């Protein structure tokens, strides 16, 4: 009840910028919907390239999210729960891809995993593996850019969770791994789910690192954002259609996930 009263008396100082902020975020999307070439929508969607790009986008974003979960959750745990030296420094390093322009991230990936890269040259000469211009390269670029979002969300959830539950589990004879699996993970599951959704959304929209590191080829590395960018060069209407598809798919998936996993109150 008290909460409700507070909302009613929200000061204009907060409401006005809040409304302006909301309009600022919503108006461009509305403009896109208004200007979309609705009459030719179906014929533009029917092109094989759209389906291919969308399929590739979904596969790559999902694979990248899976990789981020496998590597990111343990890293978040180490950052939140241990006191190993250099932990603060590692935490700062984790956030670097967040502030790095994605194109720079792509160049950095090339310098390391490229055919002449620090590690890439050995991958090429020993195993015959080259990541640039492959679908695996897209996944690597997306995981690089999106993983910090997951780590920060999970670390925040871990810091918010009471460590005494883990300690209690330990006093009852649970090993650290059992305590992590049976106590910690269920506690922070909503945080992990939220982080994974954020990570997936970031991977789905990833453009700069992908086009720089993995290049652009339909069916192999051309994800939706790349298709949008190139369509914009020649046919802005097609770009709008592609953007609408991407928007619709991501909204649909995020809404369904929100209901299933995070719960309506989150």
């Amino acid at each position, binding site marked *: 009840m008290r909460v409700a009263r507070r909302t009613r008396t929200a000061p204009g100082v907060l409401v006005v910028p809040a409304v302006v902020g909301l309009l600022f975020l919503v108006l461009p999307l509305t403009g896109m919907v208004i200007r979309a070439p609705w009459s030719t929508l179906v014929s533009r969607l029917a092109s094989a390239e759209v389906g291919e790009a969308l399929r590739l986008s979904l596969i790559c974003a999902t694979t990248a999210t899976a990789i981020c979960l496998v590597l990111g959750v343990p890293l978040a745990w180490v950052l939140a729960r241990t006191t190993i030296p250099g932990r603060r420094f590692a935490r700062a390093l984790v956030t670097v891809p967040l502030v790095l322009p994605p194109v720079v991230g792509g160049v950095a990936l090339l310098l390391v995993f490229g055919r002449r890269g620090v590690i890439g040259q050995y991958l090429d000469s020993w195993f015959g593996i080259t990541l640039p211009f492959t679908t695996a390269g897209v996944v690597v670029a997306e995981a690089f850019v999106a993983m910090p979002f997951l780590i920060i969300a999970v670390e925040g959830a871990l810091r918010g969770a009471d460590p005494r539950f883990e300690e209690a589990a330990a006093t009852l004879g649970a090993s650290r791994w059992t305590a992590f699996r049976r106590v910690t993970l269920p506690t922070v599951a909503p945080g992990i789910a939220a982080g994974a959704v954020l990570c997936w959304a970031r991977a789905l929209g990833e453009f700069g690192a992908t086009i720089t590191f993995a*290049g652009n080829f*339909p069916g192999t590395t051309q994800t939706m954002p790349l298709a949008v960018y190139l369509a914009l060069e020649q046919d802005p209407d097609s770009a709008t259609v592609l953007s609408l598809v991407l928007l619709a798919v991501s909204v649909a998936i995020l809404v369904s996930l929100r209901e299933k996993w995070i719960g309506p109150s989150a």
Partner: protein
Amino acid sequence: MRKLAIALAAALVLTGCGGTDQPASGGSTPTGTSTSAATPVGDVTVFAAASLTETFTQIGKDFEAAHPGSHVKLNFAGSSALARQINQGAPADVFASAAPANMQQVAQSGSTVFVRNKLQIAVAKGNPKKITSLADLAKPDVKLALCAEQVPCGAASKKAFQAANLTPKPVTLEQDVKATLTKVKLGEVDAALVYQTDVSSTKGDVDGVTFPEADKAINDYPIIALPKATNAAGAKAFVDYVLSGKGKAVLSAAGFDSP
């Protein structure tokens, strides 16, 4: 609601300030323009194709030196992006495009072709894969980067391959010519089709291989003093300078052909 109105009014005042700011900064230049009695041209805003970055930066400096008090503002990007910006009302006085098609989007007539650019095969220094012709690019062991068909260099590449009756198998279709060139520079691909001026801009980092089919895919670069230019006199003066002997000298030194 009243507070919203105040906020909006404040926003209007702020943008209004921005508007009056420009004439004010333009007004500060007359100290310079008054000294050159001949050609007071003021600020000229030039939108130019990315492949003109090096040459137009130089020409802009030369122009400012020749017209004391003038100031050339340069905006470089892909020709199609620039055409889009101009059509959406970006304040440009001059537009130099890397393809006639993008010029057509902005102005049906009134442009002049000022240079031509030809494709070249860019390969790693020393040409380790011994690439000598367009046909070598279609070989399976050659990793090839091309520009996407949507941008001028990609459209030109397509024409060249059609003229040679070849179907290339590129590993990537890059978003602009500089990105395509970078893939060769970094050694990620063995070869790429770029403009001859891009090869010379690397100053020896990559080698260029000429091929006869390039003559079938020559890119014309048109330039125009835009009809809607806010500084019409300045726009005309800049276009005249580009077309003059001094402008042409800079362009041909960079590897551009004369039309």
